[in-house]
């Protein structure tokens, strides 16, 4: 039998905390580990300083091509060709139109969360019409053929149309795969497994070469449209699988409760099941979108001029031969920044979910 006086907390002893301790624990805990640390620092030493030199310190930021004296990146090439990288062949005097479309897009995104359902529907329906009119023409605005669309403008258009158009199709196939009706299920499975089993490039070849053959002669198929169809059909299959995962995560009880309330199939799907399934799938859907964004680069193989194609193109300007490296580095940085930001965004959503559900 014993009782003891309350003790006050003491600070941790020196040598078990602080910077010196941290360095010892995390960088040099053992011989092998210390060797790895040294090798790591060496790797950084031989890559980072030369890279920084090339990109920043020795780079040429201004002046004309003839005045180049330094060894590093000649960014004047990028500045010179910047508009082509971003807008492709779009007429320069009409740049305000895609710019306006982008501003509207950002405004819509900010507004989306704060408005009610009716306005949300209005946004979803009006946005494609407005953007299409602005970029392509119509309603009094001058028409700009799709051949002139290029660069980052084209990449964003293809990616956005791809994700938006593939979404409802993907939902349908996901529901179809879950269906009890054998024919519907078989059709869905065949579609999904076929698309997922072949490389995107073969689908793009198919939609670009074979698709026009399916329609009566004279029906002129816009090149961009063919690519969009290929990309949409491709993405729809992958989205279908993501949503199917979400659907399978919904407890059976939800389906039963919806049935018990007397809801029809489409009502229970639309009001109860899909909202939950989609919410669960959001992190994977964003991941899917990031993949799609990266995949848009493939359209250069079928003759469309996305931002990556512009590198080769701008390089064929006889005034500016040999600047490919700067072009590739520039495009790499743009893609990296966009994809990295999207993946961080997806991660933050996922984290939010993990704290929401306990």
């Amino acid at each position, binding site marked *: *039998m014993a009782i003891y006086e*309350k*003790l006050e907390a*003491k600070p*941790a002893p020196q040598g078990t905390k602080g910077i010196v301790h941290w360095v010892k624990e995390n960088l040099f805990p053992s011989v092998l580990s210390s060797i790895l640390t040294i090798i790591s620092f060496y790797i950084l030493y031989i890559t980072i300083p030369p890279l920084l030199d090339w990109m920043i310190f020795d780079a040429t930021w201004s002046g004309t091509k003839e005045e180049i004296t330094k060894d590093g990146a000649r960014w004047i090439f990028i500045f010179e060709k910047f508009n082509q990288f971003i807008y492709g062949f779009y007429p320069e005097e009409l740049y305000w139109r895609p710019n306006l479309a982008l501003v509207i897009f950002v405004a819509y995104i900010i507004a989306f969360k704060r408005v009610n359902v009716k306005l949300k529907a209005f946004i979803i329906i009006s946005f494609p019409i407005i953007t299409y009119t602005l970029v392509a023409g119509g309603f009094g605005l001058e028409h700009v053929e799709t051949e002139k669309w290029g660069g980052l403008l084209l990449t964003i258009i293809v990616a956005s149309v791809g994700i938006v158009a593939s979404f409802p199709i993907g939902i349908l196939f996901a529901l179809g795969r879950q269906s009890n009706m054998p024919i519907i299920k078989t059709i869905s499975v065949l579609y999904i497994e076929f698309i997922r089993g072949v490389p995107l490039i073969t689908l793009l070849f198919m939609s670009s070469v074979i698709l026009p053959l399916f329609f009566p002669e004279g029906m002129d198929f816009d090149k961009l449209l063919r690519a969009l169809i290929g990309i949409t059909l491709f993405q729809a299959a992958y989205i279908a699988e993501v949503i199917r995962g979400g659907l399978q995560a919904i407890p059976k009880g939800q389906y039963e409760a919806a049935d018990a309330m007397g809801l029809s199939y489409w009502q229970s799907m639309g009001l109860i099941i899909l909202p939950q399934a989609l919410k669960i799938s959001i992190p994977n859907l964003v991941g899917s979108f990031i993949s799609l964004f990266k995949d848009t680069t493939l359209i250069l193989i079928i003759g469309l001029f996305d931002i990556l194609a512009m590198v080769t193109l701008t390089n064929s300007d006889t005034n500016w031969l040999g600047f490919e490296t700067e072009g590739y580095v520039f495009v790499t940085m743009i893609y990296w920044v966009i994809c990295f930001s999207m993946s961080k965004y997806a991660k933050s959503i996922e984290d939010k979910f993990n704290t929401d559900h306990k």
Partner: protein
Amino acid sequence: MSKLENMIEMNEVNKWYGDFHVLKDVNLKVKKGERVVICGPSGSGKSTTIRCMNRLEPFQEGQIMINGLELTEDVKRIREVRTHVGMVFQHFNLFPHLSILENLILAPTWVGKKPRKEAIETAMHYLERVKIADQADKYPNQLSGGQQQRVAIARCLCSNPDIMLFDEPTAALDPEMIGEVLDVMTELADDGITMVCVTHEMGFAKKVADRVIFMDAGQIVEENEPNEFFDNPQSDRLKMFLEQILDH
């Protein structure tokens, strides 16, 4: 009092997580064959204390002796100490990819270097003791919680430990299964094995413990023999704690 009569000796043990002082001057001596129960509010350091005994948790100051062996940083010494100490976890921690039998013979064959046949005999013997021999070829996820915990106890026994540590062994079990596990633990106690058990099961403590220890905020606050401990708490903090848990 010879040195070996103390199975477990913790002298002035202090532990910090970063700057947070989790164990304050813990002094604890457990004699051979003694049954000790540790209880206290969550965060009091009771789990941390017993996890220091088999070095699942390191400590910065003080000394721990297990069966005469000092617990140092040396990897070989740590493994040696662990062969004397068995630990039963709150979440059983059975290996799901191995059968019950394989779970039990893993340590004897790979640490104790016993031939497989001998290990199987020992394993079946202990499976019978915890009354679960018929499940030997099943897999952990096919068993109920209570069954899994009994298997976990048998798994420790196969290594012939001198000391058994229990870290809230029934806290993750459905109420109707708590009894079967406590029964096994009571039988073990009757066999004379040294036991240190972190638990809230007061009935068990009263029946089996030689000594009950109350920890709060990282230190030992009060210790007594069970009846006095529960019926006659001395310190204010213990009084408050008992009121809270006995209120249900």
